[in-house]
């Protein structure tokens, strides 16, 4: 069993490495990649000297910049030299990919092109905002999904369950950015309802209990958006599974024993219906991380999602690749988590003593 888990994790880790390598190589091979990000903008008025430089000195500056960023070396182990006689050259270990891979394996993700800060520092600061947000959203979503699923299974008929079902189905196709935008425009708009502030960073953080209230009030709308976004994919399968389980013989036996529908669902049907839900959970955490990109941009939370979006908009590749690696790591984590939960939920899978 441990070997199976290890093989699964190994495959996922390999895929994560592959996709990060792909993004790295594409970023270096496509025209107008890294140098563009590090160059001062053409219309940047704060550097009037740059406009008056001669062409030769500009070329020198460019060369120095490439040298400093490590872009002067060949990109990969082999490179193709264009020209009428096309030749292939073996570059040995002195290439950008090898250097990058070695650095990443040592835990060094490089430095941001924009301000030269280490990527690990930037990410660590950003995760301090994103992790609590995503974790709280995951916990809330699972709790609400359990409640709603049990409710839908208990009362299959009536107008309220039908309404809930329709609402969930509509939520399922609504993209998160539209959902979050509607939430912002409805609840944090001076012209509509201004219940809650939509920005986390205006006002001063207090200490102690008021601080908790402050952060809760600030996080309410982002949390609402994230929970609503992942709720249908958790609730609808759970309700269907509960419905199926409740029609089986053991459920009838439990009811004949005198249990209420509620107790039967909770004690007998739920453990069986949970198993398919655990597979959904594997996808839940990565989806939430992807969701934080949109939500953090919209609510201006300085978390990892917004960091990734801003880095992508500014061609800041070390940060973009770090974001991809981080997301892949989250997926690895959720794979492990789902497997552990499987063992806990299903006694048949546990190794017999």
């Amino acid at each position, binding site marked *: 069993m441990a070997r199976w888990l290890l093989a699964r994790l190994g495959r996922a880790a390999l895929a994560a490495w592959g996709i990060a390598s792909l993004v790295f190589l594409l970023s270096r091979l496509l025209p107008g990649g890294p140098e563009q990000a590090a160059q001062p903008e053409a219309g940047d008025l704060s550097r009037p000297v740059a406009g008056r430089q001669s062409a030769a000195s500009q070329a020198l500056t460019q060369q120095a910049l490439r040298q400093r960023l490590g872009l002067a070396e060949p990109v990969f182990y082999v490179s193709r030299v264009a020209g009428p006689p096309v030749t292939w050259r073996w570059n040995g270990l002195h290439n950008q990919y090898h250097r990058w891979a070695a650095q990443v394996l040592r835990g060094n993700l490089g430095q941001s092109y924009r301000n030269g800060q280490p990527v690990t520092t930037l990410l660590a600061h950003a995760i301090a905002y994103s992790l609590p947000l995503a974790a709280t959203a995951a916990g809330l979503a699972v709790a609400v999904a359990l409640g709603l699923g049990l409710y839908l299974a208990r009362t299959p008929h009536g107008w309220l369950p039908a309404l809930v079902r329709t609402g969930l189905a509509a939520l399922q196709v*609504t*993209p998160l*950015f*539209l959902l979050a935008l*509607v939430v912002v425009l409805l609840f944090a708009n001076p012209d509509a309802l201004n219940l809650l502030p939509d920005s986390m960073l205006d006002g001063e953080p207090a200490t102690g209990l008021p601080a908790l209230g402050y952060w809760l009030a600030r996080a309410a709308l982002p949390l609402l958006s994230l929970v609503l976004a992942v709720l249908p994919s958790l609730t609808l399968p759970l309700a269907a599974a509960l419905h199926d389980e409740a029609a089986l013989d053991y459920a009838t036996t439990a009811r004949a024993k005198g249990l209420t529908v509620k107790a039967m669902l909770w004690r007998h049907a739920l453990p069986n219906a949970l198993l398919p839900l655990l597979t959904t959970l594997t996808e839940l955490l*990565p989806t939430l991380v992807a969701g934080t*990109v949109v939500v953090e941009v919209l609510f201006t939370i300085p978390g990892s999602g917004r960091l990734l979006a801003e880095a*992508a908009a500014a061609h800041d590749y070390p940060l973009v690749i770090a974001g991809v690696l981080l997301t892949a790591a989250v997926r690895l984590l959720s794979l492990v988590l789902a497997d552990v939960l499987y063992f806990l939920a299903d006694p048949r899978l546990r190794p017999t003593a």
Partner: protein
Amino acid sequence: MKPSPLPPLAQPGYWLALAWLGLVAAVGLLAPWLPLPYPAAAPDLLHIATPPAWLGAGPAHYLGTDALGRDVLAGLVVGARRLLALSLPAVGLATLLGALAGATAGFWGNRLRVPLAAATGLLAAAWWGWSLPIYFIFILLIISTLLLIIIKWRRAAARQAALTVALPLDGLVMGATTLLGAVPRLILLVALAAGTPLAPAQLLGVLALLAWPEPARLVRAQMLRVRALPFLEAARASGLPEGRIWWHHALPHACRPLWAFTPLSLGGLIGLESALAFLGIGQAPDVVSWGSMLASVRQAPAAWWVAAGPGLALLLTLLSLQQIARFLAKKMA
């Protein structure tokens, strides 16, 4: 897939969905000939964030303008056209690619054997495409010719099967889907679009690249089921060549789940593309789409009409696609 003739009122959701999608398609197709008073991307600086015409002010800005003075109605029309020109071909391409890859992987598994000589020839062609040194080609050609001669001779002499190698098709396809599934699609799309603004053809290619694994997995799973059915055994017993069995008998059955899946896939891709436009990553600033219009409402939160039009259009389109997917799923079941 033509739906069977139903009385129009038996499935109101389905017919309403079809009508809405038809409207979007018609508007998108006819966009260049519609008599619109203003172009989509050009700002009208005299009328910034003007409310719709029926609420008062604006001259001929029927649905108002956004914070940059761009006409909302023209933006809606251009957005519908973008849907037709970008998302629809991307889904078509991804479904085609995914169906073929999944069906091949599911039917032959890792056991498709090709003659070694053919493999060498293929390799030679690949080297030629990458323009490796000339002498390499000659070496490969000589090797493959020699192999061909040897195989012919041995076949004639010993009546043996040709020298073959197994192509790990299933491993390749599943490996590619695992690779692309390692991070959520939005993250991957953001990372791939991080360079210079993508041309429409490039964006289409990237979207198709992100979307093909799902149909591939679906068709592969179905093909594994179909492969074991008796009618395929009968086809084999009657002596049909493998390729013909695959194309004529197995593929249509393996592609059945795609009918209900493709509308959902299209909806997912439209949402993904809109999210990218909303974030403003990898887009030229003058490209107008429903996603970028929704993003512009953040500059003037009071101008609800900027968000209402594209938001409703997007939501209706996605709900319609869901309705159609549901109808097709019920029909195919």
